[in-house]
């Protein structure tokens, strides 16, 4: 009886000791903080990973290029292949440790690759259980590898700079999840922040600079078709009700200088209307601004002047929105400003017939603006 118990016990112990199959020790791992995807001349994909190397570990243990300037402790390594997994396999042969993807927060795609299509490439990051849906996606003007190679003076790594820039929400901020949603949306259009290398200051090393967001890339069905400037990007942000930071400078005709105002709150509402065969959209904007600089001789506490200023502000915003619309609706003919989605939500039954030729009908949507701008405060004091 005791013998059977012992056998049974041993059997269970054997069974329990089979755990730890998937253990991962931190010193067997390399934590990837940023990924760059490039297209080589031969049509292959080149994957550049930026690996954060813990301090103390001098970061050059592995044949990668050790970046040691300033406080930077990152290692770059690239792999090439016909697809991302193939490129990563190539990468694995050059890395002595296993790659951990779960801290990848920046994905930089180079322009050439974006022009051939990003949907297929990003599929890898969705299927893989480790990368996060909150990673930020960027499109770079030059090679993504060059951007990853930068040695920012203050931040730890180039991808960290990009993440902080995206988080500040001055221009576009697009996560992997937002991108999925846009790719799947009614219009199939998406917009992504575009980054470029800031020319280094004089006397500094050529790599001692950062990448920054200066434009936005427009994609249709996952293929990049053009870019818009930062000013128009803010216009798009207005339309999408995502505006967070904006400074408006107006020059009233009656005055002799400029007045600058800073956005406190901005809210946009799109009100679709179907009038027979004509599609109409009313863009209702409500904004609250504070004055931050007054270069005119106006007394802003004067009620009359205050009214005029608010009017100027509204006009300025309308101008920006009109310019954006001109570019997006008439020139590029891409619905990145959520018009299709809004029509679908408000008129689901009529949308079905509109949807079929939405691409043709989008440029003909009549847009009217209703802008209500108010200036609340004029700062804590003023120059005498």
């Amino acid at each position, binding site marked *: *009886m005791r013998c*059977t118990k012992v*056998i*049974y016990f041993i*059997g269970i112990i054997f069974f329990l000791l089979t755990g730890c199959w998937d253990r991962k020790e931190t010193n067997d791992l390399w934590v990837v903080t940023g990924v760059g995807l490039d297209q080589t001349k031969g049509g292959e994909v080149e994957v550049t990973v930026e690996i954060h190397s813990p301090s103390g570990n001098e970061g050059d243990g592995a044949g990668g290029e050790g970046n040691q300037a300033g406080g930077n402790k990152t290692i770059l390594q690239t792999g090439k292949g016909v697809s991302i997994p193939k490129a990563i396999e190539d990468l694995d042969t050059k890395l002595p440790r296993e790659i951990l993807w779960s801290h990848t927060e920046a994905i930089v795609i180079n322009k050439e690759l974006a022009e051939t299509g990003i949907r297929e490439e990003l599929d890898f990051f969705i299927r893989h259980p480790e990368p996060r849906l909150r990673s930020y996606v960027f499109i770079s003007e030059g090679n993504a590898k060059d951007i990853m190679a930068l040695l920012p003076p203050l931040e730890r790594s180039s991808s960290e700079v990009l993440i902080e820039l995206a988080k500040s929400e001055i221009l576009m901020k697009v996560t992997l999840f937002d991108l999925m949603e846009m790719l799947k949306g009614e219009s199939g259009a998406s917009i992504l922040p575009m980054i470029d290398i800031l020319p280094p200051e004089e006397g500094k090393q050529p790599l001692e600079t950062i990448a920054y967001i200066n434009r936005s890339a427009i994609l249709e069905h996952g293929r990049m078709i053009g870019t818009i400037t930062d000013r128009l990007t803010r216009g798009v942000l207005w339309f999408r009700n995502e505006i967070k930071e904006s400074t408006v400078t107006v020059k009233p005709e009656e005055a002799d200088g400029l007045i600058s105002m800073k956005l406190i709150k901005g809210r946009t509402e799109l009100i679709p209307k179907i009038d027979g065969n004509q599609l109409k959209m009313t863009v209702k904007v409500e904004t609250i601004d504070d004055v931050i600089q007054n270069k005119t001789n106006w007394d802003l506490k004067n009620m009359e002047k205050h009214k005029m200023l608010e009017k100027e502000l509204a006009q300025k915003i309308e101008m920006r929105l009109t310019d954006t619309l001109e570019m997006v609706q008439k020139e590029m003919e891409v619905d990145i400003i959520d018009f299709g989605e809004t029509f679908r939500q408000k008129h689901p039954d009529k949308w079905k017939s509109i949807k079929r030729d939405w691409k043709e009908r989008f440029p003909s949507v009549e847009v009217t603006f209703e802008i209500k701008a108010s200036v609340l405060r004029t700062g804590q004091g003023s120059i005498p």
Partner: protein
Amino acid sequence: MKGIYILSITAVVLLIFIYQWPKIESTKVKEKVAFATITIIGWVASIIYIVFPYSTSPAKIVDFILIKLKNIILALFS
């Protein structure tokens, strides 16, 4: 490799036997037969799966029957 699997599943089955058999009262024949039969069915099934890893499973058989039933029902109503 298959040999190791067969050996280990046999070991598991033996362990079940060693553990359970003495616990069944010796007068209860029916229990013993039921226990032995089900254990042997399990053992045979696992051996079959080890030797022929692509053989079908009860879940797929049930699905198959349900599809047949569906076709019959559809044929009746059309």
